[in-house]
């Protein structure tokens, strides 16, 4: 039977990279992400006895990290107004049928993808990160975020369409056209 310290070491080794990346794409700041990950693991250490199932570790840690992030955001950052205004552009079914130019070229540009991702509102970015990075199902995301599965699907759908739109039609061009 492993000691708590051995269990904790294994958790750190297995999940620190995932947590860091999740934090990074949530807040967009490397230093803050490292702080969030450290704080997450310290909180996990204090309540390690709550972790009964090794299979639940990833979800448990991501939940702690998410709470840390929200606490930090509440303390330090007002709502991202830019993201809010972008969010208001979503919800148009036209994006589902609108023909767009092929995305292959834009997708090859990693920086463009990063920039587009960070332009998503947190409400859209977070479920997408949980799905793509955390491997969560829609139901698991719904539980984590405390919303319905239907709302999760809507957010995910809008997130991808918005991402697709931003990649096909970068903000510089969009600004010139007066879209943003």
């Amino acid at each position, binding site marked *: 039977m492993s000691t708590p310290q051995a269990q*904790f*070491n294994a958790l*750190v*080794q297995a999940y*620190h*990279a995932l947590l*860091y*990346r999740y934090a*990074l*794409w949530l807040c967009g700041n490397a230093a803050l992400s*490292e702080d969030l*990950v*450290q704080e997450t*693991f*310290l909180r996990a*250490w*204090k309540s390690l006895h709550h972790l009964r199932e090794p299979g639940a570790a990833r979800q448990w840690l991501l939940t702690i990290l998410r709470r840390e992030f929200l606490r930090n955001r509440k303390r330090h950052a007002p709502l991202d107004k830019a993201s809010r205004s972008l969010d208001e552009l979503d919800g148009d*079914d036209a994006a*589902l*049928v609108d023909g767009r130019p*092929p*995305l*292959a070229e834009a*997708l*090859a540009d*990693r920086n463009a*993808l*990063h920039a587009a*991702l960070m332009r998503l509102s947190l409400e859209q970015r977070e479920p*997408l*990160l949980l*799905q*793509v*990075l955390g491997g969560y199902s*829609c139901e698991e995301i719904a539980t984590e975020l405390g919303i319905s599965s239907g709302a*999760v*699907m*809507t957010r*995910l*759908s*809008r997130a*991808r*369409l918005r*991402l*697709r739109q931003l*990649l096909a039609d970068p903000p510089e061009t969009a600004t010139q056209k007066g879209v943003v």
Partner: protein
Amino acid sequence: MNCLEFRRRVAAEPDLASDGLREHIRHCAACRQFRDELLELDCRLRSALLTPVADDLAARILLAQSTLSRRRQQRRRWLALAASVLLVTSLAVFFTSHETARPLDEIVVAHIEAEVAHLSERRDVPMTQLQHVLARVGQHLHGDIGPVNYAGVCPIGRHEGAHLVVDGRQGPVTVLILPETRVVERRVIERDGWHGLILPARQGSMAIVGKPGEELEAVARRILGRLGQVS
């Protein structure tokens, strides 16, 4: 399933596979392209999210945790130490108070019996000597209390007190001034043939013992008044 429904579902979960979805893309090239594009987007996104992580991040996390653990251990040690000190102190207080828990009337009577010879002394202690004795127990007389046949400082129980023998109407009266022995209320001493009172004073207490019929309370109140110790 129409194109709109298909695209809603695929945009939420591009790698979702169901008979309905498969059937739809078999006949709809535009939706197949839409789905392929989103799968490609997810694939690229997954790869783009795998940003490098600082090599020493895990080590720093473990260091922070071990520091926290050490602090908590130290705090636990301090708490254990504090608990031990508290326990020892409590035990000491319990045992010492147990010793003083011996009834005061028993202590008073035992002291008088141990020094019963003072009852027959007739020294007529001078005022200066009396004040000197009283000063040793932190007391001072502010007036005459009548003839005093004996005055001394004695260990009475766990503390020192002034032992006086004065004249009463029925015979010698023993007065014990006990500044460090507090009592809450007046008590009567009726023990082994001795008759007396224990009275609370502003500072500690006073015990007075005499023969039956002696007006002990009046004598005691007069002395307490001269000492400024009426409670």
